């Protein structure tokens, strides 16, 4: 069997004396929707930050498509095909929705200063293509009507959708979604679940951090669980639901259980 799309191998991430990730190994196969869950502070977002190059792991390796990306520059990692959204929305607030997505599309653009100054035919056609594909993405996400509004002024749900559009615009192989359903009502959550499936069907692999169990259980093919920086479980939703370690992590540990600290 070929190597999985994304592999974390013994990744440890320390900040001073705090160990945010402790020897975490996990993988994501191409074409699946993988959920990453765990109680608050378990290190889920740290996994995203290590994968996208925000942090360089203290030890261990991150491989994408069989190639080590630990320590690679962030924008290079994005160009290789990993894109993410953020737990607290990080759009470019005063750029329009369309421009936000265009920045994502630009990840693979070849135009730089000389081309823009000379306004070569290639530059112009690239600009048109960028605009077109950004528009298409907004249509796909159902927020085309907001294209020319500043991101700041979009309704909350549309901002979340816009973040996903912007990430998809970078043409990733794997899409990392950090709590995309936060703040959604049940109807919106169901809609988002369908959207994630549609995204997968378009050929994207999805790695999802989500707190809402109904979303996680219904959307994901497979789930990995982190607790206090340690990887404690990996399995299908039904297995995870009944895993005693997971239940313990979520409901709290008995006082006599030693966790080593």
């Amino acid at each position, binding site marked *: 069997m070929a190597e999985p799309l994304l592999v974390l191998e013994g990744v440890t991430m320390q900040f001073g004396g705090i160990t945010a990730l402790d020897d975490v190994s996990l993988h994501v196969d191409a074409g699946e929707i993988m959920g990453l869950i765990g109680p608050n502070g378990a290190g889920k977002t740290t996994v995203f930050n290590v994968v996208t190059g925000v*942090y360089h792991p203290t030890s261990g390796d991150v491989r994408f498509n069989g190639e080590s990306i630990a320590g690679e520059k962030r924008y290079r990692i994005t160009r290789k095909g990993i894109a993410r959204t953020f737990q607290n929305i990080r759009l470019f607030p005063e*750029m329009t929705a369309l421009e936000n997505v*265009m920045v994502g599309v630009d990840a693979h653009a070849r135009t730089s*200063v000389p081309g*823009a*100054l000379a*306004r070569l035919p290639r530059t112009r056609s690239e600009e048109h293509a960028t605009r077109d594909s950004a528009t298409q993405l907004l249509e796909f996400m159902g927020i085309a009507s907001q294209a020319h509004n500043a991101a700041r002024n979009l309704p909350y749900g549309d901002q979340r959708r816009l973040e996903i559009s912007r990430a998809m615009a970078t043409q990733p192989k794997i899409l990392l979604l950090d709590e995309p359903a936060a703040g959604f009502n049940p109807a919106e959550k169901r809609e988002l679940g369908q959207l994630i499936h549609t995204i997968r069907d378009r050929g994207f692999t999805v790695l999802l951090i989500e707190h809402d169990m109904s979303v996680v259980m219904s959307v994901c093919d497979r789930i990995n669980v982190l607790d206090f920086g340690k990887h404690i479980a990996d399995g299908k939703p039904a297995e995870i639901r009944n895993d005693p370690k997971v239940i313990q992590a979520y409901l709290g540990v008995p006082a006599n259980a030693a966790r080593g600290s």
Partner: protein
Amino acid sequence: MTFPPFVLRVRQAVNDRRRAWAVKWRLLPRRVRVGVMVLLVAYLYLLPVAPLPFVRTPEVGFSGVLADQVVIYVLAALGLNVVVGMAGLLDLGYVGFYAVGAYTTAVLSSGHANWPWLATLPVAIAASMVAGVVLGTPTLRLRGDYLAIVTLGFGEIIRISANNSNYLGGPRGITSIPHPPSIHIPVVDWHLDFGVLDAKPYYWLGLTIIIIVIFLLRRLEHSRVGRAWTAIREDEDAAELMGVPTFKFKLWAFAIGAAIGGLAGSLYASKIGFINPDNFPFLLSILFLSAVVLGGSGNIAGAVLGAVVISYGPERIRNFSDRRYFVFGVVLVIVMVFRPQGLLPSRRRAAELAHAGSEGTGLLGEPSPVASESADG
């Protein structure tokens, strides 16, 4: 800081008025807008010959002010606006690039060689660009205040080095810098003589250069490059994670800004004919920055307007003699109280400044050393 209500009311009224005009302007047919711009530019060329009734400079020649001050400030503000306004990098040593341009022209045309001015111009631009890259490569890893302090140091280093370098003439500087070549078209018997007495040709030359620079800057602004700059300015971490090579584009902003500064310096040197380190004080960096901020950071038209006000203002009120800088300072303070976003702000930049500090930055999901990571090196 809180202001009395009337300040806020005036701010709002001014803003509404300007917005209304801006909307009206955009709704005009393209042909009309182009026509108005062409007429305006044509009039700008005629300005020294047919000045407006109140636009004059007591006690000094009007075209001299235009050529020595206004043109230079506008160019410098355009360049600094790329760095500060578009890419959002605070540069307090911009005069350094201006000095590099001026000294390059001086050295090549008079100090140590006899090149004509026109030949020194591209070298001056290239040299200041290189200076921008050399300064930017180590320092653009810093952000905000740290970057400001390092660039401030750079401006001083250039001036003090020039002061202590025999090669650059030390405190006495370099003299006999040649003027631009005179133009003579025999068919229509038309002369353009760049001499000492008539400043008008320099103004026309400067205005032409400004128009070309604006033309090129607009191309950058409306391309992937401008988009990348805006993204960096609004959220550098997010931009990098969306595939923007932030360092490369910040360096480009620095290099382009430096190149335009060098161009302004070269033009200045060839106009006045001699330069020394005193021509490049720290104050000049501040005045250029004031022009950008006063005019409206991030907007090309704003930078031009700000530069005109900063350079022409003190000359206009020369009859206040010694108190004119005091009066001018008070006027600037009043303008900034009533219009903190600048006279002609870019809509986007004004909104960014208004919302600055209203939300968390630098955190990617959880408390982390992301923001300080870059500041540490």
